[in-house]
């Protein structure tokens, strides 16, 4: 890491089985600018890419893992939905 690398804060939320697995429902993480959704997931589970079975949203919209995050974003990870 370079000294002049810039950082941003994002809120990360977990639901259902993921919430239980991580033992928390949300947290604020500091990430290097330019980090994408897949990069955030690798920060959570080192070395693992976002599995197909995990859905991700940024600011309550479904996204793919190559979406770049920004300061203040709210990210969420969760298993397939089972409502209705």
């Amino acid at each position, binding site marked *: 890491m370079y000294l002049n690398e810039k950082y941003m804060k994002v809120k990360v939320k977990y639901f*259902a089985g993921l919430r239980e697995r991580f033992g928390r429902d949300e947290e604020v993480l500091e990430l290097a600018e330019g980090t994408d959704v897949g990069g955030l997931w690798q920060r959570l589970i080192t070395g693992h890419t976002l599995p197909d079975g995990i859905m991700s949203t940024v600011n*309550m919209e479904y996204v793919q893992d190559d979406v770049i995050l920004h300061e203040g974003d709210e990210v969420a990870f969760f298993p397939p939905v089972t409502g209705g």
Partner: protein
Amino acid sequence: MKIRITESPFDPLAEVRDYQDEMRQQGKYGASAIFIGSMRDENEGEAILSMELEHYPGMTEQHLEKIAQEAGRRWPLLGTLIVHRTGTVNIADPIVLVAVWSAHRAAAFESCRYIMEDLKSSAPFWKKETTEGGQRWVEKNTPGYTD
């Protein structure tokens, strides 16, 4: 259009009646299609005692509104009502209500189905069932369109 998320039990037929009374479109709609999903006492062959329904507050409402708006773009709807339960759900409790009003039946049937399928596959709700053996997350919803 009305979207309601409720942690308390709700009465789907009363919700339909109340919404319709407020619509003031009597004589304009000739068709309403209503779907009610309720809690069964078994799933995949195992007896279910109760269920916890978790959701993503904020996104849930926003997402259901988006589905309802998309249905309104695809079909000429005069009214759309979606109610979904959260929290602790008991056997036979209503879980979801989707009701739509339109001039003709094709629009009513198809938009009601469309909303339910989208809700099932993408609205952020998760069910955790309590069986005699303990609790388990429902892994996925059954597929929708079969024809």
